[in-house]
């Protein structure tokens, strides 16, 4: 495996995977807001939008994505899920970045990275 990287002392590293669309009920938005709270508390937060979760990255109208970006979280979008839903880079928020599943694999195998799937 690649060398594992530990987060700075006193903070944790979170890899939050959102698979639900933002219409799926209040839980979807609440999960992203959990990421906001963690980022504002000083932790490293990466949010990975996958499956219907990629719709949260469309345009600039998702307040949770805006707040995540403002809090310093990194927002990643699964390229396969976006392509399956006919989304491309031009339709997505400027705060997000398209990545492959290898990015998720790398993050989840880092030392002390806390992964959560919603």
């Amino acid at each position, binding site marked *: *495996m690649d060398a594992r990287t530990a987060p700075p002392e006193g903070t944790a590293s979170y890899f939050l995977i959102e698979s639900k669309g933002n219409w799926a009920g209040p839980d979807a938005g609440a999960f992203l807001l959990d990421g906001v709270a963690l980022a504002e508390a000083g932790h490293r937060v990466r949010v990975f939008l996958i*499956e219907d979760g990629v719709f949260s990255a469309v345009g600039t109208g998702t307040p949770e994505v805006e707040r995540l970006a403002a809090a310093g979280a990194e927002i990643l979008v699964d390229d396969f899920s976006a392509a399956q839903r006919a989304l491309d880079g031009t339709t997505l928020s400027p705060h997000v970045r398209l990545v492959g599943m290898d990015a998720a694999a790398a993050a989840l*195998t880092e030392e002390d990275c806390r*992964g959560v799937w919603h």
Partner: protein
Amino acid sequence: MAGGMERRLWDLLLILTAAPHSGDVVTSALRLSQAVLDKGGSVRVWACGYATMMTQDTFGDTKLPNTRDPEGHYPSPSAIVRRMIADGRGRFAWIACTACTEERGATHHIPQVRHRSPLRLATTVVGARQTLYLGGA
């Protein structure tokens, strides 16, 4: 005093409880598993609920023919799992929850699948550096 036996730690455990027909979750689980394997890591999948249906030996090697692509090859889920276990050479394993298996009468798993009681779920979680819980009950 004799030393304890060193326990193997898996890089990733996926507890897959979502039904295969409920969405993209099985595709995501397999893609993530393959990505970790491609990095040289190790993955275990614990299949619960209707996910236990995926590895039935009655599926054969292929899905039903796709009439829009009759020459296409579409492997069955059990064939995909069998291939990943073989290609993983000990770095990929698939566990079927025995309670969920029995409840659904899905007792004809391919021989590569390991059967485990839900009483061993906690032990299995302890045996992984990272655990993700995919899907609802």
